[in-house]
């Protein structure tokens, strides 16, 4: 049965931001443009615009996160919203309250937006399907499914540094299997029309059906990095060693760790990205992470503007293009 795109309202405007999949190139571009107009806010001395004044944003984190939660909080505050941080230990609501009961209670407090992180794939969709009509849901990472704001800040970073998407070849390296970031990046890159997306890793970390997402798998990093414009490294979770997915960190590093030597196979002006937090000496050499081609910290900065853009668009208050300064 075909359903409507739950992320859009009747006018085709963003209502929830759950996944990149199913969103148009025009809409993704609008997010990037809006973020661009908002970056000046983050750089001026009074770092606030009144776009979400009087609105209540709830950070609902069922899974630990420092960076993502902090940037969402900063983004909401710069939009002048009131922010409530709720951290629920474990995925089960601890006092036996169901997820839906908890949402109903928050809605009764007239919250306008839930920023949700959850360890189950589809959790944000589930919540979006059951919230009151006035509430927007932003997915801040659900299981291995999606992390769309991370992907959009990566797109923002790429566009700022590379301009057009069309000629780019992008390689995503590491644990594609379990990565919500990679899935969202793949959808964003293919929607924005890059030349080629490659995924690089051992077969234990690259799903067999990955090509159905429109990417090319490479099992050898050296051939995979040949002439790429952007290298995106993924964090390797420690538990991948225990689950018989990899023999050892050192073997992984020798084959798939990004060293200066391997990076030299990419284009001379290739940039290196990483969603963080990084494991130095596991997936990336310190000299690369801290090197001139690394844009890892810029990604973090851009995260605030992109999240501001998504939040203001979802609550129906996109700033005008020239409205960067109030």
């Amino acid at each position, binding site marked *: 049965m075909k359903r409507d795109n739950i992320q859009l309202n009747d006018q085709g405007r963003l209502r929830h931001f759950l996944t990149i999949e199913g969103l148009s190139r025009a809409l993704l571009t609008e997010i990037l443009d809006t973020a661009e107009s908002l970056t000046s806010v983050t750089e001026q001395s009074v770092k606030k615009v009144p776009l979400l004044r009087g609105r209540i944003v709830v950070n609902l984190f069922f899974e630990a996160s420092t960076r993502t939660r902090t940037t969402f909080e900063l983004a909401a505050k710069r939009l002048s919203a009131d922010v409530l941080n709720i951290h629920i230990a474990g995925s089960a609501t601890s006092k036996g309250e169901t997820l839906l009961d908890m949402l109903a209670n928050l809605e009764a407090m007239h919250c306008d937006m839930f920023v949700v992180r959850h360890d*189950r*794939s589809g959790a944000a969709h589930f919540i979006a399907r059951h919230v009151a009509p006035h509430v927007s849901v932003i997915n801040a990472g659900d*299981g*291995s499914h999606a992390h769309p704001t991370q992907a959009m800040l990566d797109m923002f970073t790429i566009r700022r540094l590379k301009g057009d998407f069309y000629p780019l070849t992008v390689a995503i390296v590491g644990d594609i299997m379990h990565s919500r970031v990679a899935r969202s990046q793949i959808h964003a890159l293919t929607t924005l029309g890059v030349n080629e997306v490659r995924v690089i890793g051992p077969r234990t970390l690259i799903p067999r*059906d990955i090509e159905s997402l429109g990417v090319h798998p490479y099992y050898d990093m050296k051939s995979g990095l040949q002439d790429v414009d952007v290298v995106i490294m993924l964090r390797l979770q420690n538990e991948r060693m225990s689950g018989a997915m990899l023999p050892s960190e050192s073997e992984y590093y020798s084959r798939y760790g990004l060293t200066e030597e391997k990076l030299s196979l990419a284009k001379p002006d290739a940039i290196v990205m990483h969603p963080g937090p990084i494991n130095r000496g596991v997936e990336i050499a310190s000299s690369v992470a801290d090197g001139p081609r690394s844009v890892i910290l810029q990604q973090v900065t851009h995260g605030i503007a992109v999240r501001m853009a998504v939040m203001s668009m979802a609550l129906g208050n996109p700033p005008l293009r020239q409205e960067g300064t109030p």
Partner: protein
Amino acid sequence: MRLHIRGGHLIDPANNVDRQADIYIADGKVVGIGNAPGPFTVDQTIDATGHWVCPGLVDVSAHLREPGQGHKATIASEAQAAVRGGITTLCQSPMTRPVLDSPAVAELIRQRAEATRMIRVVTLGALTQGLEGQQLAAMAALKEAGCVGVSNGWSPIANPLVLRRAMEYAATYDLTVFLHPEDAALRNGGCAHEGAVSVRLGLPGIPQAAETVAVARDIALVEQTGVRAHFCRLSTARAVQMVARAQFDGVPVTADVAVHQLHLTEMDIADFNSQCHVRPPLRSLRDLEGLRQGVLRGSVAAVCSDHQPHEQDAKLKPFSDTEPGISGLETLLPLTLRLVNDGILNLRDAIARLTSGPAQILGIDGGHLAVGARADVCIFDPDAAWVVDSNALTSRGRNTPFHGWELKGRVTHTVFDGRLVYEG
């Protein structure tokens, strides 16, 4: 009680009957087909003109939730749903609470079912105590208490030596072993078919090999022990081929599929639709076609509802946290008839997979309508179209992914033990 079912078109695959014929019933038995057995005074006449008449359906898997899960359903509540779906015999797995590993539980279920006076419930006893895969259950006592087979449910025995012993012991008492072929290690906590859709949704996948590895191992052990075995709810095309090959080689194995596996695929979970969370998972279109082939050729001898009624909350969670299963009693017949309407199965084979096939697997008398047979009858209008409305289901479980589907074929009368127990 003496019944006369008049003017219907009788389909009784077991007896090779496919023609218009009246049925005469007395004292719970069929006493005449076509002609009355001499002078026959009738208490009740059912006009089946223009309708199809077949044996009451036999469902090899329905979870009636009793004892132990009364918040989901009870035998009494599901009996009403069963007869509305034309089903008169259901098989309950040992996955009750407590586990059906003692004669007392079997006896309780038998009594509760008898009290409904609408359906017959046959039971599978546990293969190991508590379904824990360690100690053999008291199979001889369970058989004495009426269990028609033994099974370890959704806890397939990991240790092949224990399974071998369990098979040998079951064979001693001529019990069929019902196997859910699923390798737990390969399943690895998955909740969806490992394929394009699970990759896209980031849902932990269950590879095809989780089923085929188990089928291969189990067939080898069946050959070794000589036990009669039945594979429950096959989900992959490859497993169907393996079972067909084993049957060709003379290994005593049978198989069934759940009817939803013949209509839905992995694509149906694409928006995290928890109503499509089932176990084993919905698989690829190729698998669906392979399962249909198995049903067509008869290597899969039964199509079942795998009825699993749930309370609403069980499905109101993120996909992987929801409980698997579909409330399926009321859609078993129309979904099977849909295969006939789509030209995939002929009507006779379709009815066979719902009556004589499952009866044979369970080793019970039923699923046919010759003189002297049990008078369990299903009468339906094959052309009546209706739209499935989950809120209008009789079952206490409203969990169906078929909500909104237009189906053809509606049960008009169900006769159980010679009495009219449902009239639509």
